[in-house]
């Protein structure tokens, strides 16, 4: 799986610690159609460098920091991770008239001004959404040693 915390995302993380930027209490989970099913942007990637899906009824889903799960090992001893809502997936709106081909998901800060992270789906396969389909995503964030 291709995934990255681009410069913008690292700035957000470093802004929370050690720097004392304003606390981020929400993030947004979004879907992209640009790049490919197995590639994301490089380190200078940002929101302008990707295409967010516009399938009918799509909207970004808000993620509260308080809902991220307990910090745990990212196996095996590779780092630490947290899974959103203990693994209960985030459900996107049922597709209306027009679908899309989704190459992965990305996270933005609460104000939707910065790309925190961008990742393909773990099976490196695009998801083709048609009318009445529902996409569920289980966000996981890991930092390696």
């Amino acid at each position: 799986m291709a995934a990255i915390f681009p410069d913008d995302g690292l700035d957000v993380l470093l802004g929370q610690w050690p720097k004392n930027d304003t606390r981020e209490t929400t993030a947004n989970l979004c879907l992209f159609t640009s790049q490919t099913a197995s590639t994301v942007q490089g380190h200078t990637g940002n929101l302008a460098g990707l295409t967010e899906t516009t399938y009918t009824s799509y909207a970004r889903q808000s993620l509260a920091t308080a809902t991220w799960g307990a910090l745990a090992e990212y196996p095996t001893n590779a780092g630490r991770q947290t899974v959103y809502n203990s693994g209960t997936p985030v459900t996107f709106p049922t597709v209306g008239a027009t679908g899309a081909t989704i190459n992965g998901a990305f996270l933005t800060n609460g104000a939707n001004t910065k790309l925190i992270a961008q990742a393909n789906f773990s099976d490196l396969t695009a998801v083709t959404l048609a009318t009445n389909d529902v996409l569920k995503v289980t966000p996981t964030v890991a930092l390696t040693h």
Partner: protein
Amino acid sequence: MATEPTVYECPSTQCALGTVGEPGYFTSGATLEQAVMLTGKPTDELNEGTDYGEGVCPNCGTLGTAVP
């Protein structure tokens, strides 16, 4: 410049949209066909604007509220 679509919040705590226990968001709204599937009602018992159409959650059929 393209107009941003209105984003609605689904008020139903039972709805799977978003994640459990937190509000989910959508744009546009449930189609008539989706409303039939969600409610089990025939099309002639469904009303646009309350049962389907703009602002009606496509995942549960509840009328949402526009997010400022």
